[in-house]
């Protein structure tokens, strides 16, 4: 039942209590004034958000229902396309170009493979980064000499701009690059599908595992030592302590970290764009959007709206999943 939700600062929304006592009333009024003040102070931020976030989204959605300008074959000039209905969406989702299946070599023919590639990258990189990040966080949580130096050093990959990382790995994965030299191989990393995908995954994991590690580390440090000591006294093994104490207690922080990473990697652009240019089945949805912008804004509006809804859906599933657990942990009774 929704009314059971713990009252937060929403008190201003329901200021009328059935029994009004003199002292209580002045407190209420105070709260109302405070609430007014709060919303007035928040207003500039809200307006700013509306301008930079809400307006572009609405604009993109509106554009996605317009046809792209088409060439008038008689004059040789472009003319406005007019209202398109859901044509742009049919074009992408059905991979239809002018009423037939989009031939290879058009952006339209790549939609579902881009969707698949995006999710492939998301699943693989998030799993790898979570496991490696957890491992790094556990190491960093220990007390040892030079711990702060390690923590700082771990952040270096994260602080390098993605485009720079991509260029670095582009050179390292080149045919004459250092990776082939070190491994003694002659792999064409950016020239065929699976090596290209792995090159991108390796770069992404290198770059963003520190981010995961730090978020998880923050969660680990919230666990009091007493819990571990008590478990030790009870004779729990190291593995039991990990699965029974560390994992459940770090879960909220872990979930937030995974959510952030997932949303981030769903809009992956720089790494594949720079390392492979989207060749060999490494085109992600964001690359598709940017390429389509060059060919026609309105159709790009449609594919970016689809991307938006996809990310939204994933976020929704995550937050719902996450939220249920957070509530369960906090109240630990009643609601299921």
């Amino acid at each position, binding site marked *: 039942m929704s009314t059971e939700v713990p009252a937060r600062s929403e008190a201003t929304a329901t200021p009328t209590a059935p029994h009004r006592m003199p002292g209580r009333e002045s407190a209420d009024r105070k709260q109302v004034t405070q609430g007014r003040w709060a919303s007035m102070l928040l207003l500039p931020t809200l307006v700013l958000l509306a301008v930079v*976030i809400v307006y572009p989204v609405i604009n993109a959605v509106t554009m996605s229902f317009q046809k792209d300008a088409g060439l008038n074959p008689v004059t040789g000039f472009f003319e406005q396309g007019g209202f398109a209905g859901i044509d742009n969406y049919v074009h992408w989702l059905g991979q239809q170009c002018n009423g037939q299946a989009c031939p290879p070599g058009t952006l339209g023919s790549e939609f579902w493979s881009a969707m698949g590639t995006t999710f492939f990258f998301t699943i693989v990189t998030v799993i790898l980064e979570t496991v490696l990040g957890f491992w790094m966080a556990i190491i960093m949580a220990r007390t040892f000499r030079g711990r702060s130096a390690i923590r700082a050093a771990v952040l270096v990959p994260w602080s390098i701009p993605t485009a720079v990382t991509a260029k670095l790995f582009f050179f390292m994965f080149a045919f004459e690059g250092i990776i082939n030299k070190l491994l003694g191989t002659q792999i064409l990393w950016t020239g065929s599908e699976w090596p290209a995908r792995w090159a991108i995954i390796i770069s992404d994991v290198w770059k963003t595992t520190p981010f995961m590690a730090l978020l998880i580390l923050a969660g680990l440090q919230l666990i009091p030592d007493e819990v571990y000591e008590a478990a030790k006294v009870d004779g729990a093994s190291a593995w039991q302590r990990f699965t029974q104490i560390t994992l459940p207690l770090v879960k909220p922080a872990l979930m937030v970290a995974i959510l952030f990473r997932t949303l981030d990697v769903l809009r992956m652009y720089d790494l594949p764009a720079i390392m492979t240019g989207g060749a060999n089945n490494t085109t992600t949805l*964001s690359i598709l959007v940017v390429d389509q912008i*060059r060919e026609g804004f309105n159709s790009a509006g449609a594919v970016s709206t689809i991307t938006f809804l996809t990310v939204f859906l994933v976020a929704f599933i995550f937050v719902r999943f996450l939220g249920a657990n957070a509530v369960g942990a906090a109240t630990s009774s009643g609601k299921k």
Partner: protein
Amino acid sequence: MNTRKYLLPAAVAGVLAISLSACGGGGGGGTSTGGGDASLDGRGPITYVQGKDNSNVIRPTIDKWNAAHPDQKVTLKEQSDQADQQHEDLVQHFQAKSTEYDVVSVDVVWSAEFAAKGYLQPLKDKMALDTAALLPATVKAATYNSTLYAAPVSSDGGILYYRKDLVPTPPKTWDEMMGMCSVAKSNNIGCYAGQFQKYEGLTVNAAEAINTFGGKIVDDSGKATVNSAEAKTGLGKLAEAFKNGNIPAEAITFQEEQGRQAFEDGKLLFLRNWPYVYNLAKTDGSSKVKDTFGIAPLPGQSGPGASSLGGHSAAISAFSKNKATALDFLKFLTDPEQQKFFATQGSLAPVLSSLYTDPALVAKLPYLPVLLTSIQNAVPRPVTPFYPAVTKAIEDNSYAAIKGEKSVDQALTDMQAALQAAGAK
């Protein structure tokens, strides 16, 4: 249940994701050919827009113009050095019908798109430009629907770099070159490479192969005509060379720079590249071929091959108020004196054929006579308002063909269909 609670954070997260992709803005189109007649006679200060002036070529040129025309001064607006960003900046200003930009520098492959969108002032009638002295291919690249829309300012073409210590006379034809690959094999180096990674460079190389053997990607009326026997021969030659190893397998990852490095390392017998490589291969400390390489026109079917064309043109914005001044500035840019300065100062290939034999210039840029042959035989990349989609159709399908993922037949059938879907029908 109260899904609202979950919906809001999810929505915020999603919104953040889209706001990145949604900033493309505005719709296309507009058929207006620009201001009234008054602007055609307009004289006064104008703004010239181009990408970053890395070798300090345009500033001294503009200073010179300004000294001679104190009442019609030119102001330089420098864009970034990224072609995509330059394109975007121009589109934004044109869409807003901005009068701020008067003369703009356009990459040869953009001119048709800008012309078809009504952004550029046609150079005809009162605004006509004398093109007699210009290299024909450069004029063709600036022409859309039989109307000239821009003045060619700089050009570029592919040339063949070869190892003169291993092959004394350069090959004249493709087949002759493939015949010389046994020399490469006995020296244990790769035979031939160009730019075959999937990017604009592949369009350049695939178009050269197709054009060299008489194929046409898009005909003069803008129709896709790539599914022809000639095109099949051309693309087939590239695919075959990849298959039998005359083009080493790693060339599939080559852009200009990787090819240059392999050639300078002595790992290639032949390299197709732009003229910029010449000075680097001569002077780079790491170059092992300083004194042992030569240059020649691209090999063709029976004579020189058909190079793709690079370079920039200058066009007048349809929304400019001072078009008379702008036209004078265009003529000034194509004047032999400025062209010579561009060549010596910025190594930009001139658009005037007469300069390619100028002794002073040839002394400084020894590749000019070879480049002239290349540009005289050059075929512009498809002049089409749908260039981004057209180049994608060429890249994707020729990439599949040279990798052997598709037969050449199938690749050309798909390329034809993709070109038609792009609008070239």
